[in-house]
């Protein structure tokens, strides 16, 4: 690669990261803003952090969101990857219907998915709450994993896996040792997308959750009518900082383990 192209590439990467992170920095800066209502800067304060510490239900909602998102992303990644492999490799009755379902799910407006799942849960007589929310989020995120993994598997060499099978590997071992390592980056990408979707979903969550289980996006969106309170900014800043610390920690851990 020529030097000029390389500089261009670095510039682009930095620009995109700047685009992604500037709004987050704004949120963090405004979490120290001494104003209850405006978007103007009125001076430094830590009061929103103490307000946050006193706001138990808000913190509970955030923790609920984290647990649902972690579990939902993991289950959706497993199911979504399996779905991609089934669609890609196996012939079985209803394969096309299944593949169609994946795309229908992505295009379904949230409100439609939320209401139809709620009706389904009511018909099944399930208690609304954590489990119904989890099932809905898995369903919401699954197609994103499948589409990503399918794209990764699209041009791969079928002979590899056939060779493994010829050598006597079971379907599971072929999956574990050939397919999965090959699909790994897409699987990881799928998990990240699923986690993001689950952390941010409002309308589906609204309909499928019950009177005892509240998640963060619902609580934030329901503030619109009365004005979003700045302790949300403080919460966002805390969550962001914790994430970054976790990532740095994980990176250091993997690096030392490699050595």
């Amino acid at each position: 690669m020529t030097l000029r192209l390389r500089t261009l590439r670095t510039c682009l990467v930095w620009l995109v990261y700047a685009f992604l992170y500037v709004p987050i920095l704004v949120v963090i800066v405004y979490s120290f803003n001494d104003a209850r209502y405006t978007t103007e800067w009125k001076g430094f304060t830590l009061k929103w952090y103490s307000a946050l510490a006193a706001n138990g239900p808000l913190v509970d909602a955030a923790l609920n969101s984290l647990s649902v998102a972690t579990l939902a992303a993991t289950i959706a990644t497993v199911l979504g990857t399996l779905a991609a492999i089934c669609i890609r490799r196996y012939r079985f009755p209803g394969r096309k219907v299944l593949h169609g379902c994946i795309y229908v799910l992505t295009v379904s407006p949230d409100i439609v998915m939320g209401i139809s799942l709620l009706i389904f849960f009511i018909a099944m007589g399930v208690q609304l709450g954590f489990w119904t929310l989890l099932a809905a989020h898995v369903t919401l995120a699954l197609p994103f994993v499948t589409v990503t993994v399918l794209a990764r598997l699209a041009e791969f060499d079928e002979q590899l896996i056939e060779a493994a099978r010829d050598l006597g590997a079971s379907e599971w071992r072929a999956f574990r040792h050939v397919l999965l390592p090959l699909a790994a980056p897409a699987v990881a990408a799928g998990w990240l997308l699923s986690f993001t979707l689950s952390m941010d979903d409002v309308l589906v969550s609204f309909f499928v959750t019950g009177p005892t289980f509240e998640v963060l996006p619902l609580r934030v969106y329901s503030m619109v009518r009365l004005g979003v309170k700045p302790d949300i900014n403080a919460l966002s800043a805390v969550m962001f900082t914790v994430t970054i610390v976790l990532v740095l920690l994980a990176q250091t851990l993997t690096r030392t383990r490699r050595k």
Partner: protein
Amino acid sequence: MTQRRPFRTASIAVVWLWLGLFALLPNLGLLLVTFLERGESDFVSLVFTWDNYARLADPVFVRILGESLWLAAASTLVCLLIGYPFAYAVATARRGLRPWLLLLVVIPFWTNSLIRTYALIIILKSQGLASNVLMALGLVSEPVSFMYGEFAVFTGLTYTLLPFMILPLYASIEKLDKRLLDAAKDLGASSLRAFWHVTLPLTLPGIVAGCMLVFLPSLGCFYIPEILGGAKSMLIGNFIKNQFLVARDWPLGAAASTILTVLLVLMIIGYWLSSRRVALRERKGADTGAATAGRTPDATHEDGDGMTHGAHDARGRA
């Protein structure tokens, strides 16, 4: 096929069970509702009618659909133009760095979207961050506002949807065999030609996947056009939400949602047909051996039926 394959059977069963239960069943229910009449006491009443579809054959609805499709397509294009070079840069970065660069892309999205949108308002509003920066640079002499217009809407949509473009693209570009590119260059192809004839076709599945994951959700997305754009026109997502919640006309909302789905299926079929034709032509031309070299017909695989691997299947069989 005759041998026992517990893994295969189990996977198919689990996937079928989940999608059948949580996707197929509710959507069949939805389809049923589109043929029913609106009811006062239970939202729908069990009377068959075609009326809901007839009511959607209305210039108002067509305009709503057209506006939404245009907005979704344009934001998909913007995401692709930014996302592709970015994903390419990340996928060709130092190996150990790649997962972390990717993680850094999604971390901002774990902050609530409404909060991020409000942050965008702080940046875009009159006398906001963007305006102040431009003033400080001397590019404008008076405070400017970027709010409540197409610019704000596209900024918001691109901002929200970018990771859904970057991640599938990354997963697809990352496995690109660099040797193919080198071979093309050794054969005297310019960088541009090599990109056009080798990189692009090989990463096409990723492009298609990324575009789908941006285009489809953006069709239903309405809160960004609402908050940043000022809600001056109605979008399909808004229309459907209105039918379900405000007007409480579930059959009409369900019919609108079904039309959206049908439109999507037609687009998938159209894509598949055209990619097959392109693939056939390419194969006949045979000047871009890289894309198909060394491939044998896929024995275990039936005709391509889907978007992402349709192109591959077609090539494999040609």
